[in-house]
Structures are given as structure tokens and as C-alpha cells.
């Protein structure tokens, strides 16, 4: 089952692409910056260099030059 979300124009979103890799985040786009709002478990997972590289590559594919992660407040 695909969990990729689609935009109104049919383009795959960064949020969906990250979710397919198990990174469940909310993406807040700010021009070239994607702010990934995530829970503690996802923050911890991004401590892994390879996974971080994957997230950065996906963001680049989706047109973002910068990616930053914010810890979701309870």
C-alpha cells in the first residue's frame, strides 16, 4: 500500500516521500527551506547519517535547498 500523498496537481510531496522511508513528519515549506516537524523518535532516527542523507536527497528532489528538523511540542 502506498502512503505517498499527492498534491492537488498530482506531484508527490516530500512528506509522502519521507513517510515511505518511515520518517513520519509534517513538512512546513518556507521557500527553499523545508521544516520537518517530528516527534522524538523521528529526531532520534535522524541521528543516523545515512538516513539523514536520504532525507536531504529527497528534499533536494522536491526543490528544497535546506532541511531543518523541529521537535513537535506535546
Amino acid at each position: 500500500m502506498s502512503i505517498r500523498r499527492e498534491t492537488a496537481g498530482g506531484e508527490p510531496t516530500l512528506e509522502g516521500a519521507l513517510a515511505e522511508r518511515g520518517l513520519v513528519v509534517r513538512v512546513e515549506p518556507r521557500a527553499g527551506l523545508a521544516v520537518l516537524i517530528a516527534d522524538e523518535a523521528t529526531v532520534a532516527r535522524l541521528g543516523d547519517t545515512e538516513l539523514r542523507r536520504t532525507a536531504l536527497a529527497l528534499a533536494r528532489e522536491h526543490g528544497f535547498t535546506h532541511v531543518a528538523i523541529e521537535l513537535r511540542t506535546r
Partner: protein
Amino acid sequence: MHANDDAQAAENEVLLIQWLRGAARVAIGYSGGVDSAYLAVVARNTLGMHHVLAVIGRSASYPAAQWAAARQVAESFGILVAELDTDELNDPKYAANPSNRCYFCKSELWSRLVPFASRFGFQTVVDGTNADDLGDHRPGAQAAHEQGIRSPLADCGFTKSQIRHRSRLLGIPTWSQPSSPCLSSRLPYGTRVTTERLALIEETERAIRRLGIVDDLRVRYHDDLARVELSCDELAHWLVPERFARLRDVVVAAGFPRMALDLRGFRSGSLNVLHGVGAA
């Protein structure tokens, strides 16, 4: 540093000494960063105390910590220092923060520094531009060129790593210091530069430093959000939930409502990339 590069750095220093002897007296645009500190020390050692004047341009965009470090280096090496207040924030062209913002800042600095130095008999004014800088997006270099500022480190072929190496040999503490551009570089182009925003950025970086971070660090201003760039080693350390929360709390206490940690880590000229000015 590779042995060949080591030898090249030593040769460059010989060239620099010759260059300085040719000038006889120099006033240096001095920030206390790696480049200008090295230049000031070599000039002082070559020409003597009374033939070298290090001039600091002070404004809200110049971090107080850097000022203190600059004064300390000068005092340790017997370098005469003068300070000039600059007023770039009151220039609407600067405050609007266009991609050539540095041009207006440096125009302000050099237009004050050159006549000041001349009054004290310093006809040659130099800056710390090095050979690595020449390929970057540096509109400030145009202002320097217009005011006749010379760049002996670049003229002698010094790269940044060579300057660090020679600084270490000379016992200059800045040899391992991270680069520290002005605070306005933390604001995306087009975001107005104000004294309040610069103070917020400076205080936030200071608060983060108190957590023990000594490597490269930038707090990038995105309105309500601080995007924090750390070195790759530090980044992995802080991507642990409890530490991350501590970092966020420190940033929020400093005055930003939100904090996000950049996943790529520190990169010089990061906001140039965000706005398509430099290479990604």
C-alpha cells in the same frame, strides 16, 4: 597539512614580508578573525609597532565576542589598535538587505577608515582577503577595490588553510578559530537588518555556545524560527531527543519562538544558497 603545502605557506610568508617592507607602513582593516589577525601579527613583526595600525570598525553587526578576541590578540602581540564606529544600519540600502549588502557595509567602513588612517600617516590600507576568497560571491571586495584597499594575503597566494598553519606556528590563537562573518549574514537576503534582530541572533549564538559548542555555529533568522547550523560532529550529538529539547529550550529562552536544527549542518554562505547566489 601536506608537506608541499607547508613549504608553499612558508614561501608565501616570505613574499608577504617583502610585500609589507615595500609598503613600509600599513593600516589594517582588522576584525580579529583568522586572516586579519595573521596579517596584523606578520606586519607588526616585520615593520615594528609604530608602523602598523589595526583598525576595528564597530557596529551592531560585529559580534561583541569577536571584538573582545580581536583586542586580546592585538594586546598579546603589541599591535596598536584604533576603533571606528560605523553606521551601516542607518543606510537604507544596507538595511534592506539586498544580495550585495556587503558592498554598502564595506563602502561605509573604508570611506571612514581610509581618511582616518591617512591622518595618522598610513597611506597603504590593507584587508585580510585571501586567495580562497577570490572565487566567492563577495560584493564587499568591489567596495574595497573602489577605495584602493590592497589585499596582500591574496596577492601572495595565501589560502585559508595556509594562513591557519602559519598562524599556529606563530602562536596566534586564532589559528583554530571558526570563521565568524558579520551577524547580518544570518538574515536571508530581503529580510530587513535591524539592531534588534542582530542582538537576538548574537544572544542566541552566545547562549548556544554556553552549552559547550566551540565548532562552527550559525543561527539563521527565519522570522519566528531560528535555524541552527552546527558542524557535522556536533549535529549527530544533538540529534538525541533530550539534548535536542535542551538546545531548543536555550534558543527559545534567548527569544526565538521556534528552533529547528539544520540537517545538513554548517555551511558557509548557507543563505546565499537559499537565495541562489552561490553554488549549492
